[in-house]
């Protein structure tokens, strides 16, 4: 068994840093998808015609209740075989991760919408405000305040699931550690350790910031 080697740490670190940047890039793209698509899903489930609500609700229930790994492998294989083999693993992986987490963020948004007092909707109706103003000026500001901490927590959870994408060849940190080990027959433990530390270093401050945001919003005017 190979022993821990500080020189290997120094050697593997640049590759791990490269992988970490990829993790951040995936998180940014998938996070945007999760934040925006989740919101659209929650709104569609609230105001869409009955058939839209049924379809959207069914599809996202399905996504929520099947493993991310299966979804990643399925979509990657299906797009490679039947749609376009040129699509990058980064693009497909980010999209699958974003859609998967949209199924969770939509639930947080849905809870936020349901928490808006019925009197707000009634006042908006009594004033005959157009739908886009009801959502844009009244519901969304209150909804985002109520849901932002929960959505931030989903994004942190998603960030920690980015290594799942190594199965389709996204060169994030786990893939980089394995690649290094494949080339040098060494360094996997050091690589995984660096990956863990980088994940912790990135997610802990974000979690603290999310908690502070939650506390600050709790003290705000609404």
């Amino acid at each position, binding site marked *: 068994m190979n022993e821990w080697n500080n020189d290997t740490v120094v050697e593997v670190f640049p590759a791990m840093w490269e992988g970490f940047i990829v993790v951040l890039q995936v998180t940014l793209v998938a996070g945007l998808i999760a934040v925006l698509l989740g919101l659209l899903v929650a709104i569609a489930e609230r105001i869409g015609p009955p058939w839209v609500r049924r379809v959207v609700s069914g599809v996202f229930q399905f996504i929520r209740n099947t493993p991310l790994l299966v979804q990643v492998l399925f979509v990657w294989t299906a797009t490679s075989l039947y749609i376009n083999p040129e699509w990058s693993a980064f693009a497909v992986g980010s999209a699958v991760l974003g859609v998967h987490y949209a199924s969770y963020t939509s639930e947080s948004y849905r809870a936020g919408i349901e928490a808006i*007092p019925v009197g707000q909707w*009634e*006042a908006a109706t*009594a*004033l*005959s405000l157009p739908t886009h*103003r009801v959502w844009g*000026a009244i519901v969304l500001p209150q909804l985002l305040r109520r849901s932002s901490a929960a959505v931030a927590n989903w994004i942190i959870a998603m960030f920690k699931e980015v290594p799942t994408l190594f199965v389709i060849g996204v060169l994030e940190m786990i893939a980089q550690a394995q690649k290094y080990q494949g080339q040098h027959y060494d360094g996997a433990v050091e690589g995984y350790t660096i990956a863990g530390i980088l994940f912790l270093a990135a997610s802990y401050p974000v979690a603290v910031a999310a908690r502070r945001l939650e506390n600050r919003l709790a003290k705000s*005017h609404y």
Partner: protein
Amino acid sequence: MQNPITDAEHRPAAERGPATGPLVRFDRVNKSFGDLTVLDRLSFDVDPGERVTLIGPSGSGKTTILRLLMTLEHVTPTKDPAAEGGVIWVEGKPLSHMEKGNRLVVANERHLRQARKKIGMVFQSFNLFPNMRVLRNVTEAQVHTLGRSKDEAEAKARELLDLVGLSAKVDNYPSQLSGGQQQRVAIARALAMDPDILLLDEVTSALDPELVADVLGVLRDVADTTSITMLIVTHEMGFARDVSNRVMMFDRGVIVEEGAPDEIFSDPREARTQDFLRAVLAE
């Protein structure tokens, strides 16, 4: 389409406003929630400029009447509205229904959006928008519903906030105001829409007793200085007596008794009204 109910059929005995036709007409309106019938073939008229107070025990259907007028609830439809009624009319035009060919059909959202512009409502729990400052609470619908310019809406809002004694609070959020102040903003917000009909739904019930007088004072001013038609649901009998032209006593979705405030409060004919007033005045 002409309102199919003649005035003679449904005009109440009490002294009424000018004979230009009713502003509001409930024509045999039914409203049920599941098996519970809240309004049972209810008919009454309200003339322009009239102030009508609805009294009665909880669950008698008073608030439902206001909510139907504000289109927050919808009437339980009848098979043939032209023959069986079940229609609410405002200014001689159907509110709960719309004309399709020669028939009346249940109104769609587009019709309701247009029809409800004539009506304003002040709620028991204020329902101000907590994410907007006081001024924007009063300008938002002026700009986006009535299409007024921002300057025009602001001028109107400042004038009304001055009327309700809150010109110093325009930049505050609702959460920074007392309940009475919030309710006065809500009154200003409703008046800013220049409604023909103002619905007041237990507007002092959620307030601490010492704040009630301010809100009622503002509403007395509004009643004295405008000709807005008002439908008022309240347990403040002194206010009802001062402000209204007519009082309607409800029980189980029907009008038990109606008349001028002095008649109803001083000399109620029906035992149900007597019991109710005794209970309310003893509180």
